[in-house]
């Protein structure tokens, strides 16, 4: 037993905590669907059924102080990061007790001071450059933080995604982008989004490292996310992690998803991430029935309490609509310096404004393999495909002088 690698990878405590979040994510989702059917939810309800392992596993890889910007399906990431079910319930129910006081709904909320969560906006892709900025600011302030955000397969087609990834890459910002390839963007299948087998290949346009991981395998997701987070934190630049999973419901509750072939749901149902993780815990004897039951009981009571809180919460007063367009005397975000400011002030900050151009861009020049990248030996990682950053790949020389080709 001692040598079971699974037990080394996860502590007993972590294994149970992960299960708590996985189960909580699932149960909260189910509860929200019930509330939706009872007409207690305002607007649409966007589910995360089938995608829990990706949300939970990636966020779990982060350290205290790291920043996240989840999308609306990343309920699991919010829970791991410290938000409570009541926060999500009150948002969906448009109550004044919600993190946005009813100003916005769904998982459109955040908090700069305690949770370090940046709220998404609906326009897909826009978070990527914003989180690149968060990552750059963290580095600038001398904090050793990582910024993590999520994007759908569909969202990778946006210009904002491209601009943000590229800027992060050239800045080597400590940014981890989780590309949740759940096979669909609303009714659009992934092969109508781009002719790619692995959306991790999007990373190749930016010369950054990327991974493709089985998004329904919580442990594999966590493993890859930890590696990616570490890589980013160490200053090796941004990382793109493609997690393949499946959106097991329609785009939102109004959508019966009739465009999805039934067998496709069957295929993925057989790979349900929660069941798989339960089996994993069983197989590796990481828990017992009592522990499992305790977690279930805990979740049940927490959800019941939070639901009561939400249902008893009032709607916001109408006049609140008029407030808060501008921040007047409210700004209290202090930069947290973890380095000497003098480094950034003259005369210490003085530099010579000169570009160094190692080669001149010709065809003859040798590939410039970044020293700090070359030691990275990406080979077999369980449950994942690893793509090294572009500059690591060697060009095959097949002709003398300036004439060469690569197949």
């Amino acid at each position, binding site marked *: 037993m001692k040598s079971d690698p699974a037990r080394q990878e996860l502590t007993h405590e972590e294994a149970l905590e992960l299960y708590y979040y996985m189960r909580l994510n699932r149960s909260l989702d189910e509860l929200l669907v019930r509330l939706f059917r009872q007409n207690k939810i*305002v*607007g649409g309800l966007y589910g995360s059924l089938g995608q829990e392992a990706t949300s939970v596993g990636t966020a779990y890889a982060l350290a205290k102080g790291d920043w996240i910007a989840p999308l609306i399906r990343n309920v699991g990431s919010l829970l791991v990061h410290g938000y409570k079910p009541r926060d999500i319930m009150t948002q969906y129910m*448009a*109550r*004044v007790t919600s993190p*946005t006081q*009813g*100003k*916005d*709904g*769904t998982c*459109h909320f955040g908090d700069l001071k305690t949770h370090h969560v940046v709220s998404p*906006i*609906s*326009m*897909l*892709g826009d978070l990527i450059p914003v989180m690149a900025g968060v990552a750059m600011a963290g580095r600038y302030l001398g904090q050793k933080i990582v910024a993590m955000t999520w994007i759908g397969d*569909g*969202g990778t*087609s*946006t*210009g*904002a995604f491209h601009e943000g990834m590229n800027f992060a890459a050239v800045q080597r910002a400590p940014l981890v982008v989780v590309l949740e390839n759940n096979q669909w*963007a*609303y*009714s*659009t299948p992934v092969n*109508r*989004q*781009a002719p790619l087998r692995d959306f991790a290949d999007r990373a190749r346009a930016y010369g950054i490292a990327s991974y493709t991981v089985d998004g329904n395998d919580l442990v594999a997701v966590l493993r890859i996310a930890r590696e990616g987070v570490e890589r980013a934190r160490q200053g090796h630049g941004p990382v793109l992690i493609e997690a393949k999973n499946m959106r097991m419901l329609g785009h939102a509750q109004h959508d019966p998803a009739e*465009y999805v072939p039934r067998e496709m749901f069957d295929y993925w149902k057989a790979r349900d991430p929660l069941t798989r993780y339960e089996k994993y815990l069983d197989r590796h004897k990481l828990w017992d029935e009592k522990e499992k039951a305790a977690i279930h009981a805990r979740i049940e009571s927490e959800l019941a309490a939070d639901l009561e809180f939400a249902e008893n919460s009032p*709607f*916001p*007063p*109408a*006049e*609140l*609509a*008029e407030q*808060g*367009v501008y921040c007047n005397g409210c700004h209290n975000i202090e930069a947290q310096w973890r380095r000497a400011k003098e480094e950034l002030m003259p005369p210490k900050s003085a530099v010579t404004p000169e570009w160094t151009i190692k080669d001149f861009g010709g065809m003859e020049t040798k590939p410039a393999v970044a020293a700090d990248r070359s030691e990275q030996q990406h080979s077999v990682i369980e449950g994942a495909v690893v793509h090294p950053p572009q500059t690591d790949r060697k060009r095959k020389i097949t002709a003398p002088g300036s004439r060469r080709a690569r197949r």
Partner: protein
Amino acid sequence: MVQVTYLDAIRQALLEEMDRDPAVLLLGEDIGVYGGAFKATAGLLERFGWERVIDTPISETAIVGAAIGMSYLGLRPVAEMQFIDFIACAFNQITNFVAKSHYRWGAPVPIVIRGPAGGGVHGSAFHSANPEMYFVHTPGLKVVYPATAYDAKGLLKSAIRDNNPVLFFEHKFLYRRIKEELPEDDYTVPIGQAIVRRPGRDLSIVTYAAMVHASLEAAEQLAREGIEAEVVDLRTLLPLDRQTVIESVRRTSKLLVVHEDTRTGGIAGEIAALVTESAFEDLDGPIRRVTSLDTPVPFSPPLEEHFLPNAARIAEAARDLARY
């Protein structure tokens, strides 16, 4: 005869224009197999096939860009923004490429960009926008925003046949809430013509889109109080039908502009400028505005209700003005 909803009027216009002319085709997210987020294109893929009903990646700039290129070869693409809010992602392409093409080098861009706009459905800050003024302020575009099923169909047909780029705003609150009988025959509603929805002598309420209905409701209430409000539905915001507006003000001497768009920089300003420029002597009182608040669209129902104009507020402002 059957009652046709505002939404179905749009679908009919698309279908009939595609039947009429194979140069007409559609681009947008989820418009094909799914038939569009609001089903405005339902059944069109079945009828016209994959080449004419093109499900696109999530790329508003590419959607508009491709439509431009297609129009240069003589096609008549109609691009859908899943929600009109996402038009912000194609803003550069629209204001710089589309709007300036004909002026700069003589290349007309006969495309239509359409999509669901407006609030009242708890869509929150990113699914409720009324971004029309950004485009009214952009020479080279035409901007249309119908209030009835009849106009929606007739104006969309005109937009498709127009040789200029037309932004066609659809009010999603009206999609399934209003219906009327439509003529069997092909008909169009000309772009650039406002219409007096209700005649009146005491004041003019100039408005468009969903607020036409709120204004008519207010006018009924006012009529019961003895105030006769004339309600002008602009229908087209660019080019603006100055004549109809000014004639109405000449008749009533009082002007209330109502729009669901936010206040500062909304079209009420442009109309105030037009009227004080051209009919100053006819004005018998201040120009009033009833608009949404100068805030993003809030989510929670009491907030959104407070944010939006409504019949009661319109009636109140009109009463005030009539008494002036």
